[in-house]
């Protein structure tokens, strides 16, 4: 647990694990995107292609007793936590065997057994819930940490600062992860966020802050370990991971043209987290290919499974409301 970043780079089991997680997220979302276009998925989907290192690195550093809450762009977090891609894809397809029984969809993924407490679609709204989960952990002496993911757009919701303040006041075991993918829909960070950014803001609310290259999964993992360790001791923090979404904001949106140029997207694609890890960890092309094929098969199978699964029956409409 005290390995240095260099030590981590030399840990090939870790690298293989993280690689597989990222590859699985990537393939899952590529398939999901296509499945949306083909009409298997309704509503909307927000994919995190390009951001996989944040999910894999942060969640890779957690223990079983830890909890996770996420937001509208949450497939990657669920997959990194081990939510089976079958039940995830089934959820996106609105099936009763989906992770939320088909009643949540892409924006509301829950897997209580894995400590994946849900994804909230109202921007910023998950953040205070994490403070509450951490409060429960603290008062029960359970030792668990709660990690909550949100975007750069969420950093202008006031409740985020109210939550930082509570975390600081009460020394809550919580890590607030800002996935700064440079845009909130069409709004670049500079047009939405005054001042030096969320990390400096966190400091002003009395909690720790980390800024990390979100395309380097080992760096994310390393930071996550430290942040989580501190949180477990009652020192909450913000981790700001600098990253980028390759695709449009949600299904159907153009990846570039309206609010950013193609060149910018291309430049970020040069810093692809999956390729970076392969290079840094010295993964052989053969090993990489083997993983890619394996996860592709998994996702294909998940989609086939989801397509064949049953939709919720009528009684589900009135189930699980109250009492």
């Amino acid at each position, binding site marked *: 647990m005290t390995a240095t970043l260099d030590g981590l780079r030399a840990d090939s089991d870790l690298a293989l694990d993280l690689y597989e997680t990222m590859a699985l997220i990537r393939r899952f979302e590529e398939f999901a995107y296509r499945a949306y276009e083909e009409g298997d998925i309704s509503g909307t989907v927000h994919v995190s292609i390009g951001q996989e290192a944040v999910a894999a690195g942060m969640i890779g550093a957690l223990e079983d007793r830890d*909890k996770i*809450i996420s937001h509208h762009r949450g497939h990657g977090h669920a997959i990194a936590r081990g939510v089976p891609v079958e039940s995830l894809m089934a959820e996106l397809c609105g099936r009763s065997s989906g992770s*939320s*029984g*088909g*009643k*949540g969809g892409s924006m*509301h993924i*829950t*897997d*209580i057994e894995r400590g994946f*407490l*849900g994804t*909230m679609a*109202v921007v910023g*709204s998950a*953040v*205070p*819930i*994490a*403070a*509450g*989960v*951490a*409060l*429960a*952990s603290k*008062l*029960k002496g359970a030792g668990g940490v*709660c990690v909550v993911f949100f975007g750069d757009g969420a950093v202008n919701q*006031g*409740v985020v600062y*109210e*939550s930082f*303040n*509570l975390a600081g*006041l*009460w020394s809550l075991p919580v890590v607030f992860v800002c996935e700064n993918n440079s845009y909130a829909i069409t709004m670049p960070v500079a047009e939405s966020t005054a001042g030096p950014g969320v990390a400096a803001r966190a400091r002003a609310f009395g909690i720790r802050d980390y800024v990390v290259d979100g395309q380097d999964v080992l760096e994310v993992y390393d930071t996550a370990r430290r942040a989580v360790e501190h949180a477990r001791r009652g020192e909450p923090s913000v981790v700001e991971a600098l990253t980028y979404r390759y695709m449009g904001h949600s299904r159907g949106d153009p990846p570039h043209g309206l609010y950013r140029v193609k060149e910018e997207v291309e430049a970020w694609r040069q810093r692809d987290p999956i390729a970076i890890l392969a290079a840094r960890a010295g993964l052989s092309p053969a090993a990489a290919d083997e993983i890619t094929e394996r996860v592709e098969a998994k996702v294909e199978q998940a989609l086939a499974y989801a397509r064949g699964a049953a939709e919720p029956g009528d009684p*589900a409409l009135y*189930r*699980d*409301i*109250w*009492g």
Partner: protein
Amino acid sequence: MIATGSLVEEVTFVEAVCAAQRDAMAEDDSIVLLGQDIVAGFPFGATKGLAEAFGSDRVLNTPISESATMGCGVGAAVAGLRPVVEVDFAGFLYLGLDQLLNNAAKMRYMSSGQIRVPLVVRVGQGPLGSFAAQHSQSLHALLSATPGMAVLAPSDAQSAYDCIRWALKQQDPVVVCEDLRIYRAKGPLRRSAAPSVGARQARAGTDATVLAYGAGTGIAARAADRLSRDGVEVQVVDLVSLAPLDVSAIAVAARSTGRVVCLADDSPFFGVGPTIASIATCEAWDVLAAPVLTVSAKPVPAPYSERLEAQVYPTEQSVEVAVRQVVDWVED
């Protein structure tokens, strides 16, 4: 632990609220309180002495951050505690509605039952007397319109105690609407660990039915006493629970007299009254001897002036007038 069950005490509504929390906390370690100035028991005494009794881990003063406080309550409930979030005036509750209505009320459904949110919210409702528009609001209807929550409106000390004890045994969110006007009203209290909170007949009568809740129950009962002097015997039903609504209790009460008045504290437009009235009307249609009338507050923001404010809320007189109207109704 305090002996429950047998002893009858005479306490105020707010003392009953405090006693309910105290008794429940003594029984259930997972109950924690979150709110502003609750360690000191400010401003109304609803948590007086609880910090001393249960320690600062279980009675948490919060900053003035209604939104995060509510969200923290949601998260703590999700993770196995039973938080009670106190909001002193309904006007402040707007700040917590995203957490309450988007998250607490929907997480169980959206997760197909994996998540449960045993959160209790206590919120002061209605006017306190010249506190003006922002501090004098009744939000029962908007809360009750949202599927996924129970909404209770106790009418006296006993009912307040029972509602809170009951709420603290549920697995899903419960909002207890505490009518500020009756906070200091005294009444008998018999403490029971496992009370039920259904609609109940607060007064028997055969000439007309008044359907009420919260402070309205006492108003209706006093109006009924006045009418009784003139030989008009009014049944008063205290609904207690606005969500879920006990439709069959409304039906039985409405059908038993065929003359019905609904008493509510909020606007006649989209407030509580019209829903109760509609249900009563449909359920008792074939036996109704008069249209179901609603007595509501005036549709105005609450004015500061005592003189004006006195004209806003239903009174014994306005209930009396409405009852006479349905009793004297003659179909042409």
